[in-house]
């Protein structure tokens, strides 16, 4: 394993261009203000009744938390990179993966813009 893995040149724009540390979205003031609605919606999925509501009618559930069109679209498409860009924090939106399973390494790969195998190999040093 190498000491520091540089992000691969995936051609993706960075999630946010004013990060103190490149490509590292911290839950700082700007980001969490922007993501407040998404995060509150996702936090709600810690409650079984809300999980049922989410499964039964996802759009209605998202409306309940006042998500705008862009935010709704990102959630409904399971666009993890976009959810993060919109201020979502992983520990909140991870609760979506409890309702609609996906591995965390797949969420990672998606954000980086790599296929899962490449991500496991290049970032995590797995032999795949």
């Amino acid at each position: 394993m190498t000491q520091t893995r540089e992000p691969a040149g995936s051609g993706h724009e960075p999630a946010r261009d004013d990060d103190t540390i490149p490509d590292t979205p911290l839950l700082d003031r700007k980001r969490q203000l922007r993501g407040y609605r998404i995060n509150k919606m996702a936090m709600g999925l810690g409650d079984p009744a809300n999980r049922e509501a989410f499964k039964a009618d996802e759009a209605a559930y998202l409306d309940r938390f006042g998500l705008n069109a862009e935010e709704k679209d990102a959630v409904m498409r399971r666009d993890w990179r976009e959810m993060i860009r919109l201020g979502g924090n992983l520990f909140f939106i991870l609760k979506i993966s409890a309702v609609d399973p996906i591995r965390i390494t797949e969420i990672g790969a998606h954000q980086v813009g790599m296929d899962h195998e490449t991500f496991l190999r290049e970032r995590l040093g797995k032999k795949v």
Partner: protein
Amino acid sequence: MATLIGGLGTSHVPSIAAAMDKGLRDTPEWQPFFDGYLPAQEWIRYHRPDVAVVIFNDHYNAMFLDRVPTFGVGCADEYHPVDEGWGPRQVPPFRGAADFSWHLIDTLVENHFDPEIIQEIKVDHGLQVPMELFWGRPENEWPVTVVPIFVNVLQYPIPLPSRLYNLGKVLRRAIESYDSDQRFVVIGTGGLSHQLQGARAGFLNPDADQQFLRDIADRPDELAGWSREKYVQTFGSEGGELIMWLVMRGALNQQVTVRHRHYFAPASMTGAGMILLEED
């Protein structure tokens, strides 16, 4: 007066919990990780601490952004596992050491710290995983009581590393002034290097992790002097939570002996490991 018998540091990755829940402990992927904890488990069985002070963070399972304490001290009689989205894990509730918790809060306030006083809360993998790693999962009851210290390591501004180190020093004072013959361990949790979000997701830094496992024993003052940015730069956005180990280290004497050290990477997406420190 109560006695501090040692300090532990460990990762608290949720995948570790998932691996235990799914019975993957002895699979080739996980066995080397879990086996690395055997010496610490043996140490625990031999020394039988009465109280574990566990420094960890809630990962937005029990607290929301409406009110985020820089740090809070639990003083409840019981802490139940929280529902992180999959339903609460089948782990017995943790019994609180409420009497000491209140003594700690008194001591902190007298020493110019500003804790949130927490009487009712549930706990997530941040506390569950370290307890299971060191004690194993009991059938009915934990053989130890807990004092959870919740630290904000996610919403900025997070506390200065030096502040957490000093919090550890006051924690020690509280233990030493506690009128009891109970035996305490202090457990710093979180890390090691990992980043779960952004284009830098999957960032790992095993060399820095191993260096940290040496320096936390030998050069804690240096680590306490690092900036928050340096932690994130070195260990990744979520790896920055390693600052919580400084509370444990601050509670111990300057001179310590490393009884055991273990590193494994990656556990899921995280550089994972532990340390067991005794005072000289």
